[in-house]
């Protein structure tokens, strides 16, 4: 039988190397600190949107905020910022779909809602013309012009109801737009709330390590993105 102190020592030994990314500075955050982990969840959803677009026969290229095609490294924001920021060469994707104007896919950008307040979108798809206007005029994208947005939540335990309530509030300021609530774990209370309010959600969306096939939830989400692209194409014609 192992003692409690031996177990704790084993946890201490294995915890650091197992988590990613390796800390780039010694600045550890407190319990209320922002997560330095989990941000690859947004990039994972980025990859799912790109796959949805590919299934719709899109042509896809990657660009940085300075107008250069991405070469060897991708740079993303750790927290939401302005689409016009050139502090770093942030990466976005350019999607060319047959029946739609060119679209851009961004991670972590601020958007102005219908009530003219600023919202933070973990993930955003919008027409290139809107994104370019924002870059040139140094303004925020308008919620009325977006194609769709995603709220991404990476959790260990179930997602708390607070997140669902926050998402409901957010959707009120994006009338008529597809907003998805996506999480890596199950979230019974949030799902119950969002389903009752007819909102778009998918939970347990995560790649399965070492598996040959995608989990069902991943496939369902890709299909939902495809439907959104198709609906946008119908509206655009």
């Amino acid at each position, binding site marked *: 039988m192992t003692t409690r102190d031996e177990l704790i020592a084993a946890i201490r030994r294995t915890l650091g190397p197992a988590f990613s990314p390796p800390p780039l500075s010694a600045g550890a955050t407190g319990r209320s600190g922002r997560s330095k982990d989990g941000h690859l969840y947004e990039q994972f959803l980025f990859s799912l949107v790109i796959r949805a677009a590919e299934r719709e026969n899109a042509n896809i290229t990657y660009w940085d905020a300075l107008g250069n095609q991405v070469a060897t490294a991708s740079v993303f924001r750790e*927290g939401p910022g302005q689409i016009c920021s050139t502090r770093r060469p942030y990466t976005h994707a350019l999607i060319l779909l047959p029946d739609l104007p060119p679209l851009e896919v961004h991670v972590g950008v601020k958007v102005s809602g219908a009530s003219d307040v600023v919202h933070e979108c973990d993930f955003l798809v919008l027409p290139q013309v809107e994104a370019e206007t924002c870059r040139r005029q140094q303004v925020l994208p308008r919620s009325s012009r977006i194609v769709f947005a995603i709220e991404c939540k990476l959790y260990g335990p179930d997602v708390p109801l607070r997140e669902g309530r926050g998402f409901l509030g957010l959707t009120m300021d994006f009338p008529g737009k597809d907003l998805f609530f996506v999480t890596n774990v199950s979230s019974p209370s949030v799902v119950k709330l969002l389903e009752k309010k007819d909102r778009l959600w998918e939970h347990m969306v995560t*790649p399965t390590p070492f598996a040959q096939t995608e989990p069902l939830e991943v496939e369902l989400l890709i299909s939902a993105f495809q439907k959104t692209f198709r609906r946008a194409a119908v509206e655009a014609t």
Partner: protein
Amino acid sequence: MTEEDFVYCYEQIAEELTTTGRGWIVSQVEERLNQGKTHMVKVETLKLRDETAQLSLFSEKEHGLQFQRGKSAEFLQLADYTVQERLFLLLDAIEVLVIHEMSLEDAVLTFFQDSAHVQSIELYSEQENRTVALFQYGDSRQKDVEMLASVVRKFRKEATL
């Protein structure tokens, strides 16, 4: 393990996570703990003995007598987590996040490598004005993750005895 051991272990692991910059995991778990656990229970309701009677505010005895057994109905019941459940929730969260993180990292790096020949992904914080994370294609933490997962499983087993 005793109840005291569960509390001690929870505190020690939470402290370790916090001092190594993973305090957000503890925050997530504690938010869940503060919410408590819920389950549906079927209970017998009460009904007024005489629907037309006025409730007396002055006589508790008389007040009580005015109720009688009613129909059964489902109610939501809220309870606190036990100290053992608290520890298990923290261990579960560590396991889920470490495994999900590794698979996310692999999936994202492979995707960008395949679609844009990108070798690395950088996360930059505008607030802190610095790069907070750098992921390199080809790095694998699979062994480290498996090691931690096995320690967590052993911990859970010992805590169940």
